[in-house]
């Protein structure tokens, strides 16, 4: 997979020993800096040119400085001017540029001819893609072609994909991998507030008395933010409460770890609300002035069948009806099935209910990858709305993103089937605005969404989609139930184009592979979890014919006859596209910073109004878009009020039984970024975590006679995967649960997972299905 530049074996081993220690230190002290070692690769007497940008990996959006010399990137360090990370970086961040030089980098287009990949000039490969796309549309209609992009696509890449599919071709067959990680957060924000993305910012960390993390292992997934929380814990006595289904490094670093039975977070959140209401902890004046109460449909199903559809029908209720609904969620009743003690439920409620304590709730995949993910997001908002702890420094709900531009690209540009750069396709006003800016006939943008991610790959399998182009993503490792979707993508009925930096199990099934530029080999913009937009300039040349995804999309659009809609120049397309895109968000509610500001500063938070970032939305003290004359204005909703939702507990679609007695939970590790296509090519990270494993509770392992390292077959009703057992190592699942990280393409745990999803957000649940385990 990679070759070492160190020829001396002993020196190499020494280096590995150092890097193992650095990785261990980074998991114990997130954000730790070993400047001497981290800068050791810098050539002696080097005259480095340091260029700023955001980190390539997670949604935190740390500022990095990349040192280049003679056209090569040779070092990375944290940007001390970035208020996100203040010079800190995690172990992935420090080593990110090491993947660029991987031996198997995709440097030229490859076209499958007679079953073998043939190196092909890029222009010729783009001709093939454009011709195939055109032919497919002519023969089968425009809804027979699809694009599947990424929360790692840059803002210009996402924007031209949306314009190409929705504005030029006229199909809503565009979705992205952020559907797999953030869609429930989006649906939660929209249903509760009418406006997407967190109201607060990372500066909340400096003000909060309590951090409550909901199913969120921040020490490994958002290490720099967790490090900032630990700093506040040590300095000011701020407290971290970890509420989760598995004991992790975050749990051990927290003040309290409270474990719950999978799926019962819904009930516990309602029990917290019950306590708040019944103990008189509700902020009555806030609720009366700023909140409405609603309920929606229940027993929605789980999307397990093809072509499943669901539309919620919200109806208004009054406070008394909501109070009555909560009677089902007394701590005593909920403790019985959540396995959270009455005392712990009351403890959590008392933290939120104390008017003198500032509380931030953080979550990421645990709450979002949930068959009731939208509800779960609504319920945490309920807690903050009932107590009025929202939109103020140190008080607020904050959904963290997994990918570096899940917010900036997927959510803000709108690379989902139902979205436009501003608003949704179902809204005529929004379609008209898009048509005007794109200079296309309004009628061309279809008013109905088509396929969300899971349904898109089901449509490929069924033969309904006959052409698909994936960019910056690896769905055949990251989708749930890959055992269905891999054979689906291999079928001759669908022409597959994969644009990527490295070969992956997804590119293995492609008809055409396009060689993409990596992060610093192109200019771009990302938007992180706190609404911060960050720009970077191209830092180094990419190898061979590697090309930015935005430019390849534009080239295909031109070949299909849409050149007049894409009048950008190759040299300045990023700037030209961003300036066009900014028009969608003009105004005080979502104004984006001008490019010249972003070029100078380490990002700016939108709404960017009168030269200033807005750190806390909906609070009149900080947000110039508030116009109702009150302290708070939830202007995403027509009446300016947020919604407290009646959302019940409903069980998971598949629960352990006699045949499949264990819960399977899947997730990530600190060393690897998602499906590992980049980080497994970084020697230090690969050495530190070379393969996946299945974690057991020691009592379960003992009962089954399983020893550490022994190969175990994990099987569900859908498929199986063999992995070594891990007992008392990285994490500790609760009894009756096993945990498997999904980064390893050689051990595809998503062959085992279930493709059930939240009926509202359409985000799959990777955290819960039933499996059996046996010695392999």
């Amino acid at each position: 997979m990679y070759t070492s530049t160190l020829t001396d074996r002993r020196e190499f081993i020494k280096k590995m020993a150092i890097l193992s220690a650095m990785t261990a230190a980074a998991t114990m002290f997130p954000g730790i800096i070993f400047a001497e070692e981290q800068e050791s690769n810098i050539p002696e007497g080097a005259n480095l040119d340091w260029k700023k940008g955001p980190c390539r990996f997670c949604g935190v959006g740390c500022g990095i400085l990349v040192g280049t010399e003679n056209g090569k990137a040779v070092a990375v360090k944290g940007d001390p001017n970035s208020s996100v990370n203040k010079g800190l970086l995690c172990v992935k961040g420090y080593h990110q540029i090491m993947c660029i030089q991987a031996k198997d980098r995709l440097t030229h287009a490859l076209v499958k001819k007679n079953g073998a990949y043939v190196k092909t000039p890029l222009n010729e490969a783009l001709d093939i893609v454009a011709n195939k796309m055109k032919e497919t549309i002519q023969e089968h209609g425009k809804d027979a072609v699809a694009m599947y992009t990424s929360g790692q696509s840059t803002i210009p890449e996402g924007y031209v994909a949306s314009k190409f599919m929705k504005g030029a071709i006229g199909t809503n067959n565009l979705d992205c991998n952020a559907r797999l990680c953030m869609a429930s957060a989006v649906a939660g924000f929209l249903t509760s507030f009418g406006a997407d993305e967190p109201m607060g910012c990372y500066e909340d960390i400096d003000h909060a008395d309590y951090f409550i993390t909901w199913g969120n292992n921040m020490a490994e997934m958002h290490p720099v933010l967790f490090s900032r929380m630990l700093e506040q814990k040590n300095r000011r006595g701020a407290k971290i409460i970890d509420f989760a289904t598995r004991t992790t490094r975050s749990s051990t670093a927290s003040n309290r770890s409270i474990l719950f039975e999978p799926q019962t977070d819904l009930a516990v959140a309602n029990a917290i609300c019950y306590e708040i209401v019944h103990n008189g902890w509700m902020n009555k004046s806030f609720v009366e002035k700023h909140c409405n109460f609603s309920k929606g449909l229940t027993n929605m199903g789980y999307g397990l069948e093809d072509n499943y559809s669901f539309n919620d029908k919200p109806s208004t209720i009054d406070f008394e009806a909501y109070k009555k609904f909560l009677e089902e969620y007394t701590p005593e009743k909920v403790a019985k099935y959540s396995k959270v003690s009455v005392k712990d439920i009351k403890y959590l409620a008392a933290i939120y209910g104390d008017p003198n304590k500032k509380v931030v709730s953080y979550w990421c995949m645990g709450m979002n990858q949930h068959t009731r993910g939208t509800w779960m997001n609504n319920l945490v908002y309920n807690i903050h709305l009932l107590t009025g702890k929202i939109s103020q420094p140190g008080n607020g709900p904050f959904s963290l993103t997994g990918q570096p531009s899940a917010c900036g690209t997927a959510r803000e540009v709108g690379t989902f089937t139902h979205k436009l750069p501003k608003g949704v396709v179902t809204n005529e006003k929004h379609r008209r605005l898009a048509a005007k800016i794109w200079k296309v006939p309004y009628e061309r943008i279809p008013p109905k969404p088509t396929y969300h991610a899971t349904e898109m790959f089901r449509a490929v399998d069924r033969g309904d989609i006959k052409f698909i182009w994936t960019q910056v993503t690896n769905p055949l490792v990251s989708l749930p139930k890959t055992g269905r979707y891999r054979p689906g993508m291999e079928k001759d009925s669908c022409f597959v184009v994969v644009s990527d930096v490295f070969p992956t199990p997804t590119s293995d099934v492609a008809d055409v592979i396009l060689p993409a530029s990596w992060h610093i080999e192109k200019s771009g913009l990302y938007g992180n979890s706190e609404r911060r937009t960050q720009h970077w300039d191209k830092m180094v040349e990419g190898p061979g014919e590697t090309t930015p995804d935005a430019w390849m999309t534009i080239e295909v659009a031109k070949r299909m006859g849409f050149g007049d809609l894409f009048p950008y120049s190759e040299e300045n397309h990023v700037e030209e596209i961003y300036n066009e895109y900014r028009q969608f968000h003009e105004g005080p509610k979502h104004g984006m910073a001008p490019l010249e500001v972003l070029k100078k500063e380490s990002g700016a938070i939108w709404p960017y109004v009168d030269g200033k970032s807005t750190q806390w939305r909906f609070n009149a003290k900080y947000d110039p878009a508030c116009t109702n004359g009150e302290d708070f204005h939830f202007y995403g909703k027509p009446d300016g009020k947020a919604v407290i939702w009646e959302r019940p507990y409903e069980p998971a679609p598949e629960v352990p039984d006699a045949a499949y007695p264990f819960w399977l939970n899947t997730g990530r590790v600190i060393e690897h970024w998602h499906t590992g296509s980049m980080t497994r090519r970084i020697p230090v990270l690969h050495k530190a975590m070379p393969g996946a494993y299945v974690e057991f509770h020691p009592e379960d392992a003992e009962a089954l006679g399983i020893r550490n390292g022994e190969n175990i077959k994990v099987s569900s009703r859908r498929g199986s995967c063999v992995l070594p057992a891990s007992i008392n190592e990285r994490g500790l699942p609760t009894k009756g649960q096993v945990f498997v990280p999904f980064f390893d393409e050689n051990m595809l745990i998503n062959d085992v997972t279930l493709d059930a999803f939240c009926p509202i957000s359409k985000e799959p649940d990777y955290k819960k299905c039933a499996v059996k385990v046996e010695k392999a």
Partner: protein
Amino acid sequence: MPIKSYLAHPITGMKNDLIVSLTQYEQCEVIPAENNEVVILITDTQDDTEEHILKEKIEAIPSLKLLAMVSGFNTTKN
């Protein structure tokens, strides 16, 4: 030919003393953290006996609070 890596935790406020003490041994390579009270220690010795003796000396350093091994490799020279 063992090569081992450790996280060496100093007694509070004695990180610099610990670094000075460790760097006195030629078999030790020290990488201090910039922003935490911990240092990475790499030991590179000829054999197990030398490694054992060195470890005893390190553990006797007054500014050391805790020495936690992270990895150990045994290798031939080059």
